[in-house]
């Protein structure tokens, strides 16, 4: 059974989704979907712990490049474990924060869409086939659009629709990029493409350059790289709690991983950073994103929107790491991807706990939260510290890696910018903290109700994630060592 794990990670949620449709009973649906996510997590974690040499799984029994290949390396296993874990935590939140109509007889559809989204993301990560990436990208995208639209307010519909339009443009750009590569190489297997790419009559062509541009722009849209980020704030802010925490921790991360693989595996670092000199361009864009995202976050009036803009800034960190075009940069990127996934998911889950306590995520309405829901406020502070990258949190470990990567390549300016922009994080986090602790609660606000006043379904997972972040912050060696070997492999074009 162990050799089937690569495919089981994906197939378990993918086949549980139709089962949910048959099952329909809300309680059973909830348990089954949680079980499916947990099973997928177990498979992913087992893979992560056991994989040494890359595992190649031949779907349909056809060896690559004839058939589709699933390929598990340390890097993919790391991302798989991350995504499944976060999905499980988000599923604990369940259908809260959705339109009431969803919970009314349609719970099974919500959970089915959730699992499909998960399966799509996982499928993208584990596949070694370029076109298969597109197929699973669309599974996750389509379900995401529907899930986002389940938010409480009508704005969720427009958010989802705009996301759909931009996302489909992005997906189609990816399709064009894959098509052009296919045109020049005659294959769809990623490693096979990479092999062809080293030949001058392929790698030197203008077609490949354009393919590169389309893949980068396509993934850039889905990744919300500045200035292609317009869909993200509304999509994150308006979607139901479980969805925003899930998306924030996984969707952009998986796309980031795809981008990394496109750059480092498909095209190869020497082509991207040597021939095309893409590093400078990406670096400048990243800086703009880091500052634009964080600055915009400072001026938001709603908590979830603030977190969403902060994500845009954090994507800037990720792409900055990639732009170094170095092994250290790859390592820092992978690490920050993980750290930010945990931190941001935790924050969105806290936001969910706050929303269920306060009824809204308007920052104004959080006045005096330090008195009304002290644990929620405290959890937010912890998460915020992780976002800032205060030592002792996972965010610091990855920021440190970023810093080292920047300095190792002599990018002193990047290093300074990195630190300056984390100050902006201080500003937007502390703006909320001040409201929570320094503003008097509204006179009609209910008083603190002790431990029973909390929405433990949300606060519990949030606290667990916070503790995980702090543990990783002071004892990171298991993860950093793992990620370092994964990054080395990835950077050298291994898949």
């Amino acid at each position, binding site marked *: 059974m162990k050799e089937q794990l690569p495919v089981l990670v994906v197939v378990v949620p993918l086949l549980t989704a139709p089962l949910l449709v048959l099952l329909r009973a809300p309680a059973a649906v909830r348990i089954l979907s949680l079980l499916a996510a947990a099973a997928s997590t177990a498979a992913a974690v087992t893979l992560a712990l056991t994989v040494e040499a890359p595992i190649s799984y031949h779907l349909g029994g056809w060896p690559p490049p004839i058939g589709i290949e699933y390929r598990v390396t340390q890097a993919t296993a790391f991302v798989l474990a991350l995504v499944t874990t976060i999905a499980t935590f988000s599923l604990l939140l369940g259908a809260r924060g959705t339109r009431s109509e969803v919970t009314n007889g349609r719970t099974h559809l919500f959970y089915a869409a959730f699992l499909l989204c998960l399966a799509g993301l996982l499928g993208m990560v584990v596949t070694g086939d370029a076109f298969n990436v597109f197929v699973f990208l669309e599974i996750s995208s389509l379900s995401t*659009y529907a899930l986002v639209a389940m938010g409480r307010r009508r*704005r969720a*519909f427009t958010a989802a629709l705009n996301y*759909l*339009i931009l996302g489909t443009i992005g*997906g189609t750009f990816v399709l*064009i990029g894959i*098509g052009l590569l*296919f045109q020049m190489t005659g294959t769809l297997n990623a490693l096979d493409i990479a092999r062809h790419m080293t030949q001058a009559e392929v790698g030197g062509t203008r077609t490949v350059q354009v393919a590169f541009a389309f893949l980068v722009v396509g993934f850039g849209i889905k990744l919300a790289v500045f200035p292609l980020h317009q869909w993200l704030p509304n999509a994150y802010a308006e979607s139901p709690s479980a969805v925003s925490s899930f998306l924030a921790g996984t969707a952009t991360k998986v796309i980031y991983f795809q981008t990394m693989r496109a750059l480092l595996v498909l095209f190869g670092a020497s082509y991207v950073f040597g021939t095309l000199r893409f590093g400078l361009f990406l670096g400048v864009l990243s800086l703009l994103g880091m500052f634009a995202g964080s600055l915009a976050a400072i001026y938001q009036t709603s908590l979830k929107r603030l977190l969403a803009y902060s994500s845009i800034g954090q994507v800037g960190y990720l792409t900055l790491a990639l732009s170094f075009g170095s092994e250290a940069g790859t390592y820092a990127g992978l690490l920050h991807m993980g750290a930010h996934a945990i931190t941001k998911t935790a924050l969105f889950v806290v936001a969910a706990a706050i929303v269920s306590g306060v009824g809204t995520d308007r920052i104004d309405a959080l006045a005096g939260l330090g008195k009304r829901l002290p644990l929620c406020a405290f959890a937010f502070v912890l998460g915020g510290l992780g976002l800032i990258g205060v030592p002792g949190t996972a965010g610091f470990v990855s920021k440190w890696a970023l810093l080292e990567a920047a300095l190792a390549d002599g990018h002193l300016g990047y290093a300074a910018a990195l630190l300056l922009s984390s100050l902006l994080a201080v500003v937007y986090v502390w703006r909320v903290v001040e409201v929570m602790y320094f503003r008097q609660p509204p006179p009609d606000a209910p008083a603190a109700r002790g431990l029973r006043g909390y929405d433990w379904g949300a606060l519990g997972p949030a606290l667990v994630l916070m503790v995980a972040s702090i543990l990783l912050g002071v004892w990171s060696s298991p993860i950093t060592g793992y990620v370092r070997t994964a990054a080395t492999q990835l950077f050298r074009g291994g898949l």
Partner: protein
Amino acid sequence: MNTGIWNYWVVVFLMMAGLYVVMAKRNYVKKLMGLSIFQVSVIMLYVSMGKVTGGTAPIYVLDGGTPAEGIVYSNALPHVLMLTAIVVGVATTAVGLGLIVRVREAYGSVEEDVVTEQDRAAEAAEARDFAEAGP
């Protein structure tokens, strides 16, 4: 017959026509129409790749139970890929149209400008309410 690469240019033009409709038009239904034109044109890009001059559809011409010799077939692989792409296209269209219906129900319009304006007004009203209710 070798038509060079001019037909790719036509395909590019069609793709861009679709993309233009998506980006320039403010009506959501129209945007989705643009999107389907865009997607269909990309399908055409792939299918064009699969064409082999003088070829025929990739279905074995059988000669006594085995494939006949000497027949040139066009490439089946792009066709397979594009069957998937068509499905993706119609799936996207369906979900998009579903969203449009909900937007219309919630806002009374499917024009992006109207919707955005309403959102802005609602946000301003909300902020005003808070300012009044607050200390």
